[in-house]
């Protein structure tokens, strides 16, 4: 991202796609408040003002291929201080959405692909999921005050359906126990679905709205199927 681009060399027809974007990027007065407040300014020469200007100038390819939209955490400090009301975090998510899906960095798109196919980011089969849930529930039942504890799976007509963050059935199974202990003490009538239990929605990070709709729709389907009115979504 260190090449100098001369403004007169920019072909204005390049701007067409970004022209239609609804993030008010062309209102930028280059005041630099966003860059001052941004926690990632300076890393890899990134700063949000540069990114907003590049979008206004139509430098699409450079941005889509760069690491900038991915080292930003879309925390929206920049938006908070922007005097022109530019939706900078949403704009960055928009740039992420233009990246070829097989070039999305890290495990984000791989996890999302697994989720589309299997219902969860890990591709964890249903039997293994049920085994882990029951195993952790048995551990809680051995604790004083939690005798007889069970984790109800697919309980029709329960009061509350909860999703599960994939890391809690992977490397962090101990972290399942806090909510479950609270449910037990509060005598909650709760349940967890055996399928499509994934609580994270990585389309939020990759800019994939279609995947987000599918993941959310599956949770709603589970609620309808199990006749449950309330969802707890701790992710």
């Amino acid at each position: 991202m260190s090449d100098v681009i001369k403004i007169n060399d920019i072909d204005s027809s390049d701007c067409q796609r970004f022209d239609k974007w609804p993030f008010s990027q062309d209102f930028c007065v280059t005041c630099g408040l966003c860059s001052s407040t941004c926690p990632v300014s300076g890393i890899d020469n990134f700063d949000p003002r540069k990114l907003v200007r590049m979008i206004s100038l139509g430098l699409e390819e450079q941005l889509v291929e760069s690491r900038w939209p991915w080292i930003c955490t879309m925390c929206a400090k920049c938006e908070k201080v922007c005097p022109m009301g530019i939706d900078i975090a949403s704009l960055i998510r928009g740039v992420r959405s233009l990246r070829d899906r097989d070039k999305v960095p890290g495990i984000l798109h791989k996890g999302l692909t697994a989720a589309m196919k299997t219902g969860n980011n890990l591709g964890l089969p249903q039997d293994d999921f049920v085994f882990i849930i029951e195993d952790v529930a048995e551990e809680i039942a051995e604790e004083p005050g939690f005798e007889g504890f069970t984790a109800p799976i697919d309980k029709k007509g329960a009061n509350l359906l909860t999703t599960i963050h994939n890391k809690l059935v992977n490397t962090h199974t101990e972290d399942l126990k806090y909510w479950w202990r609270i449910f037990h003490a509060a005598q909650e009538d709760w349940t967890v679905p055996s399928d499509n239990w994934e609580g994270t929605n990585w389309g939020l990070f990759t800019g994939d709205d279609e995947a987000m709709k599918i993941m959310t729709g599956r949770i709603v389907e589970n609620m309808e199927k199990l006749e449950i009115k309330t969802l707890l979504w701790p992710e």
Partner: protein
Amino acid sequence: MTVFDLLIQYIKDGRIKLDKSKYADVPAAYHDPCNYGRKAQKMFGYGYFEEPRWILSQCTDNWTDLYPSTMNQLCCGGGGGALTTGYNDERILYGGRKIDQIKATGAQMIVVPCHSCHGQLNSIKAAYKMENLEIKYLWEMVADCMIL
């Protein structure tokens, strides 16, 4: 429903009872996740700032806010999928500001209601050699303080 509304309901209805003495000797601080706070405020017109603080106050009196906080809170550096992109050096460098903010309060425990923040805070705690800093989910704090 949100984790906050449910916990508040349980506490207010007396379905769970909490013991404030358990962590009375551990100075704690609360971190606002961007998605429950600043971003929720923008997207849904309502950010959850008061609710988690009320819940934490039912668990301990010994807690403080980071500075800045609420709408001006600093991101932990783990947002936007940063824990999964592989850009770890950038993420750790980013988290250095969070560490400075935590150090300034003298907190020995950070309470947080977000899985991504929890993961990132544990990661930067190790990277910046803050072994004695405890990273706690808000609901873990509640579960720990329950009187059975």
